[in-house]
């Protein structure tokens, strides 16, 4: 039914109102900004306590002056080293049975122990203690650099894998020459040390990497490694270091567990390998054999945590030359101790960041020469001292430096080498202890402080949402009143926190905490001025809040985090059926049919959104990736490209059909959506087609030329979508309206004929109809929304682009349902909540997982051949967080959709702004609440086995989510303010 005619006066809007509205829209922006700041502060607090990081110094060690000191005597070095790494070789796998225990894994891999008993000067077995996290990547870093890798290494380079700090591998390569290595096994090594792959003799490659991914395959890697190392072992003069990394034991543990026949079989195979290698180097006293486990396993065969079984790995040293002082069988050493020991045995400088101590047995040698041991200890202590003096975080730890000075003093004044080595070792142990405390412990007070701030800001958001319900007469006045209170509270809290924190030497945390809580207390102080609003809580609001709980509960279990995409689809489908039931309650048959149709579409969309996926390791074998052409590539399939083109054509048509429902496919819409968006999406498709052709090894295309075309297309699109379209929106203000002149002579004539003089006199001869008036705000804002969608879509892989188009369609479906079911007015929180819920679902649909490995680093090179700060970062941010950004930007649509302006009503325009802010807080309640539950679960489960593999990455995703959504809400509130002020200018 067309709206009754309305008069718009020709007179212009009062200037005072215009500027007042502009001011009001700016004040409103403070609300999301404040909550964004609170969430940021809370995240910083939590992350400071949880995400341990260690700064990495890039320095490379060189041999110090001590090496040429006449008092320094070092053990004779070996020419060659064979390192056999048996993944997850627990100490008791090479130990004795103990108390009549007859587990499958006992007394199988017996060669090391037998040799160490029969030839104690040639062979020794150690209990080899790993520092958690006991995951292979972190362990390999520790075993080569001698440091304590934490979950995130602050200095790690762009794609996170390559080891950039000093390591004994690097030292060998630089002192013996590139290519003097041979390698077979887990390809993790090559991503850590790409130069390992240079090993070759003649034209024959000496590098044989294998994928470590498939834990269901016990034998491929191991038999491959074994078959490759024999010929290499025979060609001794062509390499100095041979690394063989076996994975079978680890895989058998993961798949079957340690106490199983499969494990026994695997260990028997390893025993044969060790025996054969020992035999192969029996006649060669220039070769050192190191057999080690990078970590152990728990009783289930998994690892990653810090239980006894996981940290106790085994180490076996052997050479046909007597080089050891006989050791006790249960001798315990740290894994990082291998690094300085190997450095001396290979005659290379001790790596710069090393924290380990030399192994006494290997330094003393068969004749128990304490001068050798003291010399080694001195050199390592010197290296550690150098490291500490380069590192700002060691400032103010003078008592440790004092031990060093005392030891050096003893070295200079006495010849009691046993005592000197004890002093140096004490220094090293003390240093390691402080480093562990600094890097390897959760700071629980800081984590709890983060949770408290999250909880308080969650409560504040709820209070804000509940009271800001539109019944306030002039909301901006309240904000004007609250803002100074919040600011003052924040400053007071900052000062108090800084003061107290200084006294407790927790300055950073206390200051951040004080700032956040102070501003919240300031808000609470201003609350009594709020009117008592008692709007009834709708069932939809209850549903929205319980969906936070339902989604949050997933973080309590590693299984649900692993299967989160499917769980979310389940929740969204459930919500779809709720919508369906609600649709059937609509009294109007026509509306009911519309609502039922869109509910069904919503359900199907929610189900389909679960389909595109890149599986994470933990999902195998119950999951098949379909995001790329095959599981082993990161190139998209041809089918995906075809669907991408289909999407490029159909999505604008879908948007058009939604706009037509409100007669607002008028004015700028056909140009913007029908032409602009379509062309952009087609060009995105063209870009990926070129990428596809380029990646095809069989193509005869001129690859270089293709690359150029690719960059030209992507940069033009970047300019158009990221810069051009938003600018055009701001400047041109593309209203989707059409003005139609109608001649009313006929009507008047008819009225006169009918004797209806009243109508005849009131109807003017010519009238102006504004087509699309009923969706003025919605259509205007939607244009901006689709332009940002196009920018995000540009940074997505083909399947990701399809998924994002699906997200836009689903958001439109939800908006239509929200309009028909009047959700926007009944419960302004429910649609923003569901949009935010959808954003996580689409995060998974764009080929991501809650793991660091799933970040699609290759989009960094979407616009440029090398890393260029703004372009690269925008590409990565849009690619990773695109769904969250779009969700935040879609929130004002829950107010604007099918909303017509209220001409000449300044208060009504301001009220719309209030509703936009309120919807924004709705989405923030969801994002903040979700991160809150995630943090709580993470604190509770911080000792969980899977904390580094599953919970920590999920926490990082939750942190990124809340910041991305909050930022997008701030941006969307700003855009919405512009739209409202602009529409007021036109119709005011």
């Amino acid at each position, binding site marked *: 039914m067309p*709206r009754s005619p309305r008069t718009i006066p020709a007179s212009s809007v009062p200037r005072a109102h215009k500027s007042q509205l502009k001011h009001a829209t700016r004040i409103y922006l403070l609300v999301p900004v404040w909550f964004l700041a609170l969430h940021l502060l809370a995240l910083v607090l939590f992350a400071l306590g949880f995400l341990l990081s260690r700064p990495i110094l890039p320095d490379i060690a060189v041999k110090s002056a001590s090496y040429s000191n006449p008092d320094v005597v070092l053990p004779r070095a070996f020419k060659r080293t064979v390192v056999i790494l048996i993944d997850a070789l627990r100490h008791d796998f090479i130990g004795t049975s103990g108390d009549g225990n007859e587990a499958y894994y006992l007394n199988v891999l017996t060669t090391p122990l037998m040799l160490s008993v029969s030839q104690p000067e040639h062979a020794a077995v150690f209990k080899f203690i790993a520092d958690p996290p006991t995951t292979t990547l972190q362990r390999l870093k520790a075993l080569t650099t001698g440091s304590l890798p934490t979950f995130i290494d602050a200095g790690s380079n762009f794609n996170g894998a390559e080891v950039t700090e000093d390591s004994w591998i690097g030292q060998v390569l630089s002192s013996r020459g590139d290519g003097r290595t041979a390698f077979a096994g887990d390809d993790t090594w090559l991503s850590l040390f790409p130069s390992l792959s240079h090993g070759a003799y003649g034209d024959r490659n000496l590098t044989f990497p294998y994928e470590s991914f498939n834990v269901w395959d016990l034998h491929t890697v191991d038999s491959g490694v074994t078959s490759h190392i024999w010929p290499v072992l025979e060609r001794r003069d062509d390499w100095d270091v041979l690394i063989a990394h076996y994975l079978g034991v680890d895989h058998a543990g993961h798949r079957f567990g340690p106490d199983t026949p499969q494990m026994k079989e695997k260990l028997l195979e390893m025993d044969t390998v060790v025996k054969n290698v020992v035999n192969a180097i029996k006649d060669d006293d220039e070769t050192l054999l190191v057999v080690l486990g990078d970590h152990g396993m728990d009783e289930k065969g998994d690892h990653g945590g810090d239980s006894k079984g996981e940290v106790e790995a085994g180490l076996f040293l052997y050479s046909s030359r007597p080089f050891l002082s006989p050791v006790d069988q249960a001798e315990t050493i740290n894994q990082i101790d291998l690094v300085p020991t190997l450095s001396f045995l290979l005659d290379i400088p001790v790596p710069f960041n090393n924290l380990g101590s030399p192994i006494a047995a290997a330094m003393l040698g068969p004749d128990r020469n304490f001068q050798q041991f003291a010399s080694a200890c001195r050199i390592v202590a010197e290296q550690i001292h150098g490291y500490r003096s380069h590192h700002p975080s060691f400032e103010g730890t003078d008592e440790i430096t004092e031990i060093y000075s005392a030891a050096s003093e003893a070295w200079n004044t006495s010849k009691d080498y046993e005592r000197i080595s004890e002093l140096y070792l004490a220094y090293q142990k003390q240093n390691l202890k402080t480093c562990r405390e600094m890097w390897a412990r959760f700071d629980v007070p800081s984590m709890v402080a983060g949770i408290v701030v999250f909880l308080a800001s969650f409560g504040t958001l709820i209070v804000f949402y509940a009271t800001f319900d539109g019944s306030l007469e002039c909301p901006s006045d309240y904000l004007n009143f609250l803002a100074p209170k919040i600011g003052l509270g924040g400053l007071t809290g900052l000062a108090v926190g800084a003061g107290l924190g200084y006294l407790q030497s927790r300055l950073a945390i206390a200051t951040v905490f004080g700032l956040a809580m102070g501003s919240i207390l300031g808000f609470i102080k201003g609350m009594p001025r709020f009117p008592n609003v008692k709007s009834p809580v709708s069932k939809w609001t209850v549903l929205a809040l319980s969906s936070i709980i339902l989604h949050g509960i997933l973080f309590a279990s590693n299984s649900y985090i692993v299967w989160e995409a499917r769980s979310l689809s389940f929740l969204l489908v459930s919500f779809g059926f709720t919508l369906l*039931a609600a649709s059937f309650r609509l*009294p109007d048959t026509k509306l009911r049919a519309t609502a039922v149709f869109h509910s069904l579409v919503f359900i199907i969309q929610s189900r389909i959104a679960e389909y595109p996926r890149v599986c994470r390791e933990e999902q195998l074998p119950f999951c098949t990736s379909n995001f790329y052409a095959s599981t082993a590539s990161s190139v998209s399939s041809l089918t995906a490209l075809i669907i991408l083109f289909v999407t490029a054509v159909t999505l604008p048509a879908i948007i058009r059909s939604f706009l037509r429902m409100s007669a607002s496919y008028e004015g700028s819409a056909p140009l913007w959506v029908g032409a602009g968006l379509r062309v952009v999406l087609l060009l995105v498709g063209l870009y990926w087609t070129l990428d596809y052709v380029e990646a095809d090894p069989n193509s005869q295309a001129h690859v270089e030329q293709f690359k150029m075309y690719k960059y030209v297309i992507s940069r033009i699109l970047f300019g158009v979508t990221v810069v051009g379209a938003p600018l055009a929106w701001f400047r041109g203000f593309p209203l989707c309206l059409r003005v139609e002149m109608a001649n009313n002579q006929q009507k008047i004539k008819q009225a006169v004929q009918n004797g209806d003089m009243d109508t005849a006199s009131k109807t003017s001869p010519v009238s102006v109809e504004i087509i699309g008036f*009923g969706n003025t705000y919605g259509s205007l804002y939607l244009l901006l929304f689709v332009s940002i969608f196009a920018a995000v879509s540009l940074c997505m892989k083909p399947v990701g682009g399809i998924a994002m188009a699906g997200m836009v369609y689903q958001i439109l479906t939800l908006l239509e349902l929200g309009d028909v079911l009047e959700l926007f007015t009944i419960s302004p929180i429910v649609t923003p909540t569901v949009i935010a819920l959808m954003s996580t679902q689409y995060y998974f649909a764009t080929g991501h997982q809650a793991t660091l490995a799933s970040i699609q680093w290759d989009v960094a090179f979407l616009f440029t051949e090398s890393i260029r700060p703004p372009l690269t970062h925008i590409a990565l941010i849009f690619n990773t967080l695109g769904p969250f950004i779009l969700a935040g930007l879609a929130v004002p649509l829950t107010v604007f959709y099918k909303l017509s302006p209220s001409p000449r009503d300044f208060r009504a325009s301001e009220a719309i702004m209030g509703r936009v802010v309120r919807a924004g807080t709705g989405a923030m309640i969801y994002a903040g609440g979700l991160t809150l539950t995630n943090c709580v679960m993470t604190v509770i489960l911080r000792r969980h086995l899977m904390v580094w593999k599953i919970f920590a990455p999920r926490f990082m995703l939750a942190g990124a989510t809340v910041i991305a959504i909050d930022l997008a809400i701030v941006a969307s509130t700003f855009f919405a303010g512009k739209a409202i002020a602009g529409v007021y200018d036109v119709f005011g």
Partner: protein
Amino acid sequence: MARIKSTPRQIATPSTPTSPTPVPYKQKTHYPENVITSSALLAFPIVTVVLSSLLPSDPVKILGYSLPPVALIQAVNILFTNPVPEPVAKSSGNKKKKKAKSTVSTTILGLVLSMLLTPFIHLIYVLFGAPVTVSLAATFLLSAHTALLALFPILCTYPLDGVTWTNIVALKAPVTPAYTAALGTIAGAWLGAVPIPLDWDREWQTWPVTVVFGAYVGNALGRLFGAVLGGKEKKL
């Protein structure tokens, strides 16, 4: 002068109170025979226990074999516990017989209809995340069981007309044990999906064991709930 053409729907438009008359269902219900009701209530927990203990070994076989007995139990249940129109004072024995007969035919019709609607339920399970290409037999049999538990009784209880069924889907049909049992079945099946992703490696976590279990428990609880409310024509 300007006229403004606008969207068909505006937020401000007050909803016209032309909602479909909620209860055209005027049968006076009386829930007789406490014995029968309670025995029916007992039947499903027993079926649940038996099914859930056997199910993990071979879901498809057990679900298939148990389908006819469950259908029989449901049919008996419906025949004895469904609300029977109160005998009119004048009614003769002949008429009574006719009523009973129509109940039998209603039951048969309901059974056939619920079986025919099984693919539809299968589709709903797929929408909720059931596998599309594998475990088809298991999902289909689960759907058949769900149809027997949820659809069969309501098909026999409520008249087959649009308004009634719109209300049923809109969750505002008058409360009867059949209806609460159906809602209980749906809630139980929904909750039954919850433990599936857990990495406990238990046999009973295989699809669709937990959902069957949830559906049966939910059905029994819903029926109990409905029997307690007993004929009070409440709206949910």
